């Protein structure tokens, strides 16, 4: 029996912009439907329309039936009764869902009382029960806390608690874990599964992350340009996609298990809803495009048991058993010359030696006084050889951004040394620092924020050239634009006129302008959609090989890191937990934190996801103003819990430093009891063996 039936839902915004153009689906009791799509595909608008939460001027048509009862056109009062009782929604940003001035407990109790006739005490008790259910420690105490006193992960849990307060039949989750770190994401997904088991609700899970969907969903709906283009059982979609867009999407995601060599990007950008191509909306980007595709938009047609595809060539794809790599051209990336020389013989381009950066923690508005010290970076050491990519990974608050700023500033650090291309940053004078800046460049995370909106692209790229007095600026700008895959004519346009991926390319062109030796990449692809991301990753890889660059790559996405980096350093609370060659760290992580991190990353592989065993971490990152004594990770370390009292003493008293592991050449971990195990593909099954 389906709980929710959506038929031919369309949403039109003023100006005739159709954000959703005919979406139909069913959700059954206890079923999880995953909706995937890139930004602008209409996936979120669809769910807002179902909840009746769109602004007044949006025109919604079609039909949305909950238990056979039509929701569209229902008057506001009745809709409010349905909302929160029969359907609840979980948003990406839980902070906006809570009123800042009431306690979390009160707000959950309120949600209970709105829809159920229970007394105040009983509602409060229920709130505590719910908080306990979603795994909030000391729920009775935490219920009295205000939303801002909760961390991001905790807030998301509280939001889930509120959403299931009235035993809803349907939960709509809109990117519920996108804003969270991986280990927290794993926790929250676990909670969602618990919540579903508890309530037996159907779930609509909207996300751009194909890994999350693979682990959660029973069925998947792929959306593109406001329409579903493929729908089916999760295994069918992942293993036997029949629509070129789905195929490309799956081939373009980097995987943390390193299953693929080169990522397959989908060229071009999604069409704007105001200017859709005449036939198939994917036609301009589709390598299988034939003339007949432009005649009319292919309808979503059924091709056997519960499979729907909107592509006129789906039968052919089915027949020939094609995959994404067959359909999309696999880019060829030239190998690097430098990499053939053994690492020890290459020049060192960057060396950090025991770098420390502490911030004073101030309090008071008028008379500031120091109340403590934030240990943002607390003694880290690593080096990067020529032609190498070192990735610095860790969750938010681990100190990776501070490290990066310290390097970029080229000023003497508080303690320790930063040596760029053999030059110590504490011994630079003004002229030498400026000269060195030419060899050290940066690409920022948010390509919109990093480009001056009031400057034409040509000026943006020319700026470093002019600042360093280079000749032939216009010619060089044209060269650089071509190098990153843009046209020289683009120089006269402003950054707004480009899509996210193109803007990031402009950022890369600017970083390359002075022919630097080392480029610092600050989360260069995390703000981009998956299909665009692949193209930028490939570009970075190609440039590195062609120009002999070295990268310091700061990221939180371990799958991207595996793809791009040669070596990886995992940071936790201002220190390095584990460092080594990518294969070593990913295949045989030795530090409990790395193990947890790697096992938390969802794989875009439903079968593996189902059998995978996760190492879940408890709690949140401790405050860097007050790191635990001894090993900083001990408050969350799953291994610590299993140690004997005597062994525990060592973790509490003695801070471990990075020690090279006996078996590998390039692999070290900062744990007293380091032990290499395999976690990415680890399953229950293996455990038994």
């Amino acid at each position, binding site marked *: 029996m389906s709980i929710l039936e959506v038929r031919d839902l369309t949403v039109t915004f003023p100006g005739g912009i159709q954000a959703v153009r005919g979406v139909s689906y069913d959700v059954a009791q206890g079923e999880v439907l995953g909706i995937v799509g890139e930004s602008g595909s209409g996936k979120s608008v669809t769910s807002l329309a179902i909840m009746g939460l769109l602004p007044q001027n949006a025109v919604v048509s079609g039909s949305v039936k909950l238990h056979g009862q039509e929701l569209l056109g229902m008057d506001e009062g009745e809709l409010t009764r349905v909302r929160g009782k029969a359907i609840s929604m979980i948003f990406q940003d839980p902070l906006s869902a809570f009123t800042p001035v009431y306690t979390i407990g009160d707000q959950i109790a309120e949600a209970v009382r709105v829809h159920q006739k229970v007394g105040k005490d009983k509602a409060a008790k229920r709130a505590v029960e719910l908080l306990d259910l979603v795994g909030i420690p000391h729920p009775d105490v935490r219920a009295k806390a205000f939303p801002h006193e909760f961390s991001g992960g905790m807030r998301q849990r509280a939001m889930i608690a509120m959403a299931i307060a009235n035993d809803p039949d349907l939960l709509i989750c809109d990117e519920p874990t996108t804003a969270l770190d991986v280990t927290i994401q794993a926790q929250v997904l676990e909670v969602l599964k618990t919540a579903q088991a508890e309530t037996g609700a159907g779930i609509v899970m909207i996300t751009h992350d194909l890994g999350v969907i693979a682990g959660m969903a029973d069925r998947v709906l792929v959306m593109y340009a406001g329409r579903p283009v493929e729908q089916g059982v999760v295994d069918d979609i992942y293993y036997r996609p029949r629509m070129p867009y789905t195929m490309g999407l799956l081939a373009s995601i980097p995987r943390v298990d390193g299953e693929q060599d080169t990522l397959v990007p989908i060229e071009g950008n999604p069409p704007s809803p105001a200017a859709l191509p005449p036939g198939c909306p994917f036609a301009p980007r589709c390598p299988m495009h034939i003339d007949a595709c432009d005649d009319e938009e292919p309808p979503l047609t059924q091709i056997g048991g519960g499979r729907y595809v909107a592509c006129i060539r789906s039968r052919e794809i089915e027949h020939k058993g094609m995959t994404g790599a067959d359909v999309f051209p696999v880019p060829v990336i030239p190998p690097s010359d430098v990499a053939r020389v053994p690492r020890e013989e290459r020049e060192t381009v960057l060396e950090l030696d025991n770098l420390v950066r502490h911030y004073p923690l101030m309090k008071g508005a008028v008379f500031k006084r120091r109340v403590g010290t934030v240990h943002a970076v607390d003694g880290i050491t690593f080096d990067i050889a020529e032609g190498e990519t070192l990735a610095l990974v860790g969750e938010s608050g681990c100190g990776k951004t501070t490290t990066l700023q310290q390097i970029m500033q080229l000023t003497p650090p508080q303690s320790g040394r930063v040596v760029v291309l053999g030059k110590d940053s504490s011994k630079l004078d003004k002229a030498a620092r400026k000269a060195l*800046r030419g060899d050290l*460049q940066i690409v920022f995370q*948010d390509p919109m924020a990093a480009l*001056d909106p009031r400057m*034409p692209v040509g000026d943006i790229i*020319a*700026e*470093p050239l002019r600042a360093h007095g280079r000749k032939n600026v216009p010619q060089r700008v044209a060269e650089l634009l071509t190098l990153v895959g843009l046209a020289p004519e683009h120089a006269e346009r402003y950054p707004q006129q480009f899509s996210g991926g193109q803007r990031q390319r402009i950022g890369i062109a600017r970083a390359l302008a002075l022919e630097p030796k080392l480029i610092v990449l600050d989360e260069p692809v995390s703000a981009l959609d998956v299909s665009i991301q692949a193209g930028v990753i490939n570009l970075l890889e190609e440039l590195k090989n062609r120009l002999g660059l070295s990268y310091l790559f700061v990221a939180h996405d371990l799958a991207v890191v595996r793809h791009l980096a040669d070596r990886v350093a995992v940071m936790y609370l201002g220190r390095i937990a584990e460092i080594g060659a990518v294969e070593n760290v990913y295949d045989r992580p030795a530090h409990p934190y790395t193990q947890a991190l790697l096992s938390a990353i969802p794989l875009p592989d439903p079968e593996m996801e189902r059998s995978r065993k996760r190492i879940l971490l408890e709690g949140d990152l401790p405050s860097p103003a007050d790191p635990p004594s001894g090993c900083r990770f001990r408050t969350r370390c799953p291994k610590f819990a299993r140690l004997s009292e005597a062994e525990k003493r060592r973790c509490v008293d003695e801070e471990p430093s990075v020690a090279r592991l006996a078996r590998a050449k390039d692999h070290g971990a900062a744990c007293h009891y380091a032990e290499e195990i395999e976690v990415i593909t680890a399953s229950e099954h293996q455990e038994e063996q």
Partner: protein
Amino acid sequence: MRSKVVLGRLLRNRQARYGGIALLLLIALAYIGPYLGAYDWTDKDFLAFLSPPDADHWWGTTSIGQDMYAVTLRGMQKSIVIGLLVALFATGLAALVGAFAGYFGGWVDKLLMWGVDLLLVLPSFLIIAIISPRLRGASWLWFVVLLAAFAWMITSRVVRSMTLSLREREYVQAALYMGIPRWKIILRHIVPNLSSLLIIDATLNVSGAVIGEAALSFFGFGIQPPDVSLGTLIAEGARNATGYPWLFAFPAGLLVLLVLAINLIGDGLRDALDPGSNS
């Protein structure tokens, strides 16, 4: 590249084109117009005191028989120059002081803002009263400087606070990491991103200066009788605006036209500088 692109966009902008044409016409009127009239602005027609507009005196005459047409245009010559220069100086100063204070912070900020606050609390007429005897008979450029000196402080405070947030933008950091000197970052990345505010401020300053100049003339400073300006004409005409409307209507009308033209140019410039608008 930027100047070329902006200029191209400005020329294509319809508002800016109309504004520019209007301003050119007004300037032509101010400087060529007097040759077309029958009277010189110093002439006094003793046969016609306070006569309404007619074929002889196109815009009427004043209480001492001056031809309004000639007098108004004479006044406008001064006012256009003063208005434009004051706006340029005041807004430019506001932008520079605010942006430097906001970007550098620390003691630069403290010092500059201390200066701004001092100028804000000191009553301006007091200063003028002290300075004016010394400047009597000096060039009218001093007058522009003085007018501008009292018109920039509040804007510079606004600019400073906007700079504080712009300073944190990644593109400003990016410029720093490229090795671009800080003063250049301010001129190239901070000030252009404040252009909407600055342009509005400058257009307001034009009319403010024309009117403010009349107030200053009260202190026996700036434009002195028998010389005239739009400001002094409006101030005088306003007293008798109901009885002898032509004394007020013509100078005031020209001021409105001038401000309108400047506003159109300002709007066009803002659009040309703002890549978000598709003109």
